[in-house]
Every structure is written in C-alpha cells, then in structure tokens.
C-alpha cells in the first residue's frame, strides 16, 4: 500500500526562533491581537510504500532521525494516512 505521510518539523521549545518572532511581530503590525508563541517550522509531505500504517510510520521516523529533523534543535510529528 501507499501511504501519504506528513512530517512536521518544529524548532525545539526554548530555542530562540527568530523567524517565529519576526512573524509574530508582523502579525501584530497587521492588527492581529492576542497572537503569541509563534514558531516557524517545516512541513514535509511524502508517500511511502509499506505493508501497514505502522510500517510507514516507522520508516518516516527513521527518516526523521537520520535526515529530516536535527535531533539537537528540532522536534518532529508524523501523520500517516492511507
């Protein structure tokens, strides 16, 4: 089966995220009130051929650990859809 996999990579909490700060500031300038804690990460979409959703998730996790996310600075979340 082919599974659609979405990977979200987000800067780890506590690390300065200057992109998030700049976006938060810009939103404030546009008049959006009450916006805080903006963080900018990456969304990566891929399709994975695998026997099951669990296998696709395990493959995506391995990809995150080796390449897609930097374990020093980023966290990731994986969503798998058939």
């Amino acid at each position, binding site marked *: 089966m082919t599974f659609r996999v979405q990977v979200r990579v987000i800067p780890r909490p506590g690390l*300065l995220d*200057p*992109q998030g700060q700049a976006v938060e500031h810009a939103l404030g300038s546009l008049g959006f009130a009450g916006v805080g804690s903006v963080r900018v990460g990456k969304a990566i979409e891929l399709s994975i051929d695998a026997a099951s959703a669990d296998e696709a998730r395990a493959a995506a996790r391995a990809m995150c650990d080796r*390449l*897609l996310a930097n374990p*020093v*600075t980023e966290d990731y979340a994986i969503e798998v859809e058939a």
Partner: protein
Amino acid sequence: MSARVAVVRFPGSNCEDETLAAVERAGAAGVLLDYRATSLDGADAVLLPGGFSYGDYLRSGAIARFAPVMDAVRAHADAGGVVIGICNGFQIACEAGLLPGALLRNAQQRFTSRPVDVRIERADTVCTTRFTVGDVIRIPVAHGEGRYVADADTLDRLEGDGLVVMRYVQEDGADAPHNPNGSARDIAGICNAAGNVVGFMPHPERLADAVLGSDAGHRIFTSLVDRLGAAVSA
C-alpha cells in the same frame, strides 16, 4: 615532502578556490577533492570549505553530510586525522556528528557579511599553534546560519574541557555585549575532544594574503601546515 591537504568541493561550495590558495600559500600541496570521491587521495588533512552545499536545502549541511566523500572524511577523523570545517564546512561537521551542536539562523534574521574580531582560546589545536591564547584576529564572517546552539550540558562540557577554539569578542579582546549571530557563549569555533576536528564560522581563507590589506587568517593555515609537517616527517 610537503603535506597534502584536500579541500572538498560539494555542489554549492563557493570557497574552495581561496581555501586551496590559502593552503598552498602556507606551504602545503592542495588537492581539490570531488564530493563523489571515495578516498581522500592520500591527503593528510581535509578541509570542508564554505558555501551553500546542496543549496542549504532542508538545513545547512544536512544533505552534504551524506555525500559519498563523507565516509572517507569520517574514517579519517575517527583515525585521528585532521578535519577542519569552515563556515558551511562547520555546519556540515556538526550535521555529521563530527562536532557537537548545531548552527541555526542568525538571531537578527539577516545574512551577516563583515569583518569580526575573534579571540583565539586554544593555541594547541591543529590550526592554532602559531597563535597565543588571547590573540585577537579580525577576519570576515559571511553567513545566514551561524548561531551556534547546543544544550546546556554540552556547552558546559565544551567550556569545561576547553574545546572552544574561537570566540567573538570586541577589538580589544574583551567579551562583547553582542555577537554577530546570537551564538551561545559567543562561540565562533570549537574542536572535538581529541582536538583533530575543528570547525568555525569565520573565513580565515578570505584574508590570508597581505595584498588584500591583511593576512590575519594566514596563521590558521601555517599552523595547520606546521602540524602536518611534524606529522609527515615523524
């Protein structure tokens, strides 16, 4: 016999020519090494130069880390061989796990290209023996992602074990209130515990010839050649 120093050209490297020139000016034989190479071509040391390898896609250095040549670079480092990463090369070395930590987007969100003052914190690494601890040199930085980060334990270990090689300072050598990119503890460069792998963001190769108005970076390369010369003749 002069030492052989390989400089790797990745797709998107852009400092390999001046790095080779700096190495040769210091008395070594420079070898331009393609990223697809599977050996270091007999080199005694390997330099990972500045630039934007693989377009900095995903993260700076994240894809170069898996270039074919990196297996040989890693084996060389593991065997105690000299590996030096400059700017993008430092980013690659961190991504490859040859050095701890990571380099993130500059805190001020801008690409920074200007001379900076850095203080030499170690005068016994493979590329700083011609310095005295506390020497301040003015060499350029040119990067968008030079903010050194690591977890607090790693930073404490770097400090405690004396693995910080260069630090951003003021002209007189005093600690600076701000650094060019927001790096933790003003770190501009570090080495591994064994001292054979060194990485830093500033570009000594860009200011290594007096015709450019300063050769402040030249001693990095003469230090390296001294070290390799000693090793080659030993």
